[in-house]
């Protein structure tokens, strides 16, 4: 591993120099970038701060101070870790995911995000240029969502002890005090809506990983949903709950809903929006789109009388163009999700056991 040794030698030499180490000196992450010393500072100054140069993060204090006025609001907090291979994929990258994932967790709780933190675990040898791309992408994602990264951290692990870049983001947001969205709130008769096509993210990642190509590229749907949720809550403040069906897909989210609300859920396969490419990929790999991850979609449960108005408002939003009513909450089979198939049969949609594995033939 001559390069790494060279890198460490360079670092020692450079400790005696006066000027900041030029960024181009290191093409890859070195263990020293996690030392807390000069290289760590360089990494933050040269790679992250140029992109995240807003607000309290530039002050480099141990904590960020966030000006906010919580009157009539509740503080909402969430955290999520992101590991994805490959780091860059059609429609996004790990940086965009890390911002959107946490923004969306706040958004579906009815909160508008205030600030995020970002913690990076970097594997020795990761190209610095990749980090720069990720940082730039996180900045763009923050701007899109109207949120700032106000504090952060980096650590470096030995080569082979990580998978290039892991990111953990934590977010806080403010939610109007009167708003009580909860997955326990669904009532029989409520309508279930989805904000667009399902399974795009999971299939985008999987097709890239497995080298499957289609006539058109399936792009990840990663997107910040706080604009859409703001619109939805304005039109329909009585929304019972919203969820973003990420890992485990729609099936897992609906099962959680049915269990928490002690109600049954009925969905209609014909009304669930799934792209043709996604359906084809799922058929090919032996996967079920109901279980495939999404990163820019949400499920909403609303009283039936509000459903059409809500659907209309969702469809008028750029991130909700393909919204659809996909099912109902029912009295029967509490805790259970059923689906009417395309040809009219009925089946139970169960929780996923383990991970979906591609089948043989």
């Amino acid at each position, binding site marked *: 591993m001559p390069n790494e040794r060279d890198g460490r030698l360079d670092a020692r030499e450079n400790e005696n120099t006066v000027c900041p180490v030029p960024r181009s000196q290191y093409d890859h992450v070195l263990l020293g970038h996690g030392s807390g010393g000069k290289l760590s500072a360089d990494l933050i100054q040269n790679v992250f701060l140029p992109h995240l140069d807003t607000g309290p993060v530039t002050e480099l204090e141990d904590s960020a101070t966030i000006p906010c006025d919580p009157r009539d609001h509740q503080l909402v907090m969430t955290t999520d870790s992101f590991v994805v291979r490959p780091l860059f994929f059609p429609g996004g990258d790990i940086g965009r995911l890390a911002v959107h994932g946490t923004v969306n967790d706040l958004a579906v709780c009815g909160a508008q995000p205030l600030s995020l933190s970002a913690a990076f675990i970097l594997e020795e040898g990761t190209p610095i240029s990749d980090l720069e791309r990720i940082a730039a992408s996180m900045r763009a994602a923050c701007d899109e969502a109207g949120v700032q990264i106000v504090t952060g951290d980096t650590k470096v692990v030995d080569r082979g002890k990580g998978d290039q870049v892991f990111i953990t983001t934590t977010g806080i947001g403010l939610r109007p005090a009167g708003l009580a969205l909860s997955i326990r709130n669904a009532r029989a008769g409520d309508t279930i809506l989805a904000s667009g096509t399902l399974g795009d993210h999971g299939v985008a990642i999987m097709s890239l990983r497995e080298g499957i190509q*289609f006539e058109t590229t399936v792009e990840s749907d990663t997107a910040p949903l706080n604009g859409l949720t703001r619109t939805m809550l304005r039109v329909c403040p009585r929304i019972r709950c919203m969820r973003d069906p990420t890992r485990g897909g729609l099936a897992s989210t609906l099962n959680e809903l049915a269990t928490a609300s002690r109600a049954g859920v009925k969905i209609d396969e*014909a009304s669930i929006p799934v792209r043709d490419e996604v359906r084809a990929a799922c058929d090919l790999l032996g996967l079920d789109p109901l279980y495939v991850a999404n990163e820019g979609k949400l499920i909403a449960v609303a009283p039936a009388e509000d459903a059409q108005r809500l659907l209309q408002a969702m469809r008028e939003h750029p991130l909700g163009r393909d919204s659809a009513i996909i099912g109902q909450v029912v009295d*029967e089979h509490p805790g259970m999700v059923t689906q009417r*198939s395309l040809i009219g*049969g009925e089946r139970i949609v169960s929780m996923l056991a*383990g991970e979906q*594995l591609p089948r043989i033939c």
Partner: protein
Amino acid sequence: MKYQDEYRDPDAARRLADAIARLTTRPWTIMELCGGQTHTILRYGVDQLLPPHVELVHGPGCPVCVTPLELIDASIEIAGRADVIFCSYGDMLRVPGSRDDLLNVKAAGGDVRIVYSPLDCLKIAEENPDRTVVFFAVGFETTAPANAMAVWQASRRQIENFAVVVSHVTVPPAMTAILDSAENRVEGFLAAGHVCTVMGYEEYEPLAARRKVPIVVTGFEPLDLLEGIYRCLCMLEAGRHGVENQYSRVVRREGNTAARQLIHEVFEVADRRWRGLGLIPCSGYRLRHQYQQFDALQRFKLAERHVAEPSDCISGQILQGVKRPSDCPSFGKACTPQHPLGATMVSSEGACAAYFHYGRQTDSEALHAE
């Protein structure tokens, strides 16, 4: 992009279901042979569109399910070796051997990889000349050409650090075994469309004639299945037997001759043990003598052994269509996809796992109490 919608059309499905209802005058039992067909039936509720006296029983056509325990145990042993990269189709990884599964071997540090084609293994072998790349060559006739191609190419390209664990089974001997069983209830078969894509259906014709049984080569979409069932019932009601081809958009009578030649070049017919069914004579393939150097069991000197299956598992009867998953007292209790007791619960295409996944373990009256 045009897709499969015409094979999932609700109006056409209803018309076929009505035709089936008008056609049938007495109870019939039909077996769909392929796990993929079982999966479609349960996923779309095809069986729910049929009149109650038409019963579908689920056949042994899930390659993962019928791979015998001893070969899984041998694979697990090989996969745990530091000098081996073990490659497999994805759904084989979760299948438990007598003590462990390949996912656990991977978690414990074994180099176990999912591949989509055995030819990928040759690339891996060339990139890792100091290790042996072993492929778990399981499957029916469907996967046999690709697996044969990998061995043939390895031989031609002299890739010596490649080997296969062969667990290849074939459909017609299993059909004969089912029909020969004293408990047999099967009156007609839906043959597996993809198996016949490779093999054609000539070999089913003497079977249909000898056993006076209707066989319809059938596809995998809901309407394929309904049409296959309809055509099988037409023959049954008319007292006819023979082979018909519902899946004519893909299957030719002679199959894929190039693929068949390749299978014949690399493999020879052999007795095979099936998980749940036991030994069936001449029911699978083994490597021909000139390709034995690629036999992983020989290379790693793993002796032939027999591992007993749990006695409280009725998967043998389920694979023969004698019993249904819900007839088993362990179903959904002691036996689940996380802790399968036997063959039919291990793969998503096994009948028990499909019943479990699509909720047939619960009283279906609760589902339809509307």
